[in-house]
């Protein structure tokens, strides 16, 4: 049954992006949960990795995700000031924004790395956000810059 349902919703000929999303347990994950409880649909391309706090996200997780074939990485936490752990998202904000600049400097497309604040009450925002970024990454296409280096062919 489940297999059948999958086939119905996914056109196998259409390229499906892979999105890795790191969601903080208290706001964004709860927000995504609320979207589910509220029966708000959003694309299945997103794969959620639950973390306790956006401050838990080491920027190397983003690189790791690209290495595993992610076409887009999202880190989502509580709105500034609302962190369950008081300040985790403030630290995340500093680290992740600096990391995005570093990516950009290397020429790795910053549109492939999104940061968002989604609260536990923002099920609708979550649903819309996923729709938007899925549309965007579909328009961007597969992350070829990175997939080229995934094969790990010989060095110098």
């Amino acid at each position, binding site marked *: 049954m489940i297999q059948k349902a999958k086939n119905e919703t996914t056109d196998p000929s259409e390229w499906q992006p892979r999105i890795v999303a790191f969601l903080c347990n208290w706001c964004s994950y709860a927000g995504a949960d609320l979207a589910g409880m509220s029966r708000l649909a959003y694309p299945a391309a997103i794969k959620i990795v639950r973390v306790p706090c956006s401050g838990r996200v080491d920027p190397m997780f983003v690189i790791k995700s690209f290495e595993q074939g992610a076409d887009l990485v999202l880190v989502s936490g509580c709105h500034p000031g609302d962190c369950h752990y008081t300040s985790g998202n403030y630290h995340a904000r500093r680290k992740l924004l600096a990391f995005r600049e570093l990516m950009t400097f290397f020429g790795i497309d910053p549109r492939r790395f999104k940061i968002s604040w989604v609260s536990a009450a923002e099920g609708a925002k979550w649903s819309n956000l996923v729709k938007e970024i899925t549309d965007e990454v579909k328009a961007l296409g597969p992350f070829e810059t990175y997939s080229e280096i995934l094969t790990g062919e010989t*060095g*110098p």
Partner: protein
Amino acid sequence: MRSTNVDEQTLYTAQAGWLKSAVDILQGAGVDVMAPVETEPGVVELATVKSSEAVTLDYQNVRLPLKRLFFPITEVVLEFKSQPEGDVDVQSEPLVSETEVVVLGARPCGVAALEALDKVFHWDYDDVRYSARRARTTLISFACTRPDAQCFCTSVGGSPHNTTQSDVLVYLEENGQALMQVCSDKGAKFIEQLRDVVKPAPAGTQPPAPPEVKEKFDPAKAKAWLDEHFESDFWTEVALKCLGCGACSYLCPTCHCFDIVDEANWQAGQRRRNWDCCSHPMFTRHASGHNPRPDQASRCRQRIMHKFKYFPERFGQVACVGCGRCVRACCVGQNLVSILTDIESKAKGGDKADVASTLN
């Protein structure tokens, strides 16, 4: 270390423009041609070329050692993939392609280093990938014309005109012509392919005299001291300055330490062989956390001992060709030459020589 008798060899002269013809002929024969190319300002590396225009002849030596063509910086040993039923499919192919490779313009020191590597990789067991790469490759060395202050090939039995392991040694001439010395059957085959532009040299033709390279130390004397000084404060002193950065080892044409790693996710992966370096603490660290070479002193000692004691004992030659890369690379002004000259002066002065004053 010249293993072949020059008299038995045949000398050929190549007319001006021979290099262009050589590249074209080899290309036509489906051969992969590698030659010195200026990859960035002031840096020359061996690279695959399609035409002779990309080739530069204005270089002292290539930056990376020749060993990388046979013992790559990283190479796949095998690949594995999980199958739907839970089995794992292991694939040790592909091995090395059989395409013939001709390297134009290797330096004699780098080529000579292959003698040491060959011994290691054919020693207790035949390394198939290394051997296959060696077998398919013809090495056309260009005699060294510009040894610099850091070179010391003569100290370790080499010479700017060393023919060891070269298939052909080419003496470039100012006018674009060249004198070619065939050293092997592969070399003879190369000359045969170039028969339109290469003619046997007139009888009595002699290769030019090699440029002078100063002898800086005597490996035999060094070994005599090393034999007696496994435990010595000298190593502590050497290690004090050494940052263990590994640049010397990675650039060394004879260093051949490697690491085997598995790079995998849940679905598939590769087992790889990567260059490694005995200066790094991780090199000998056990899974338990125990490290038999726990400090930089023991690691520095290992590097010197390996090159000038263990390797000669096992294979009858030192594991150094005097290319000088380690001397140029060291950012704290310490290197094989300074260590070996220190050892030699200690050997002369006995153990009581003031270590600190000689080293620092």
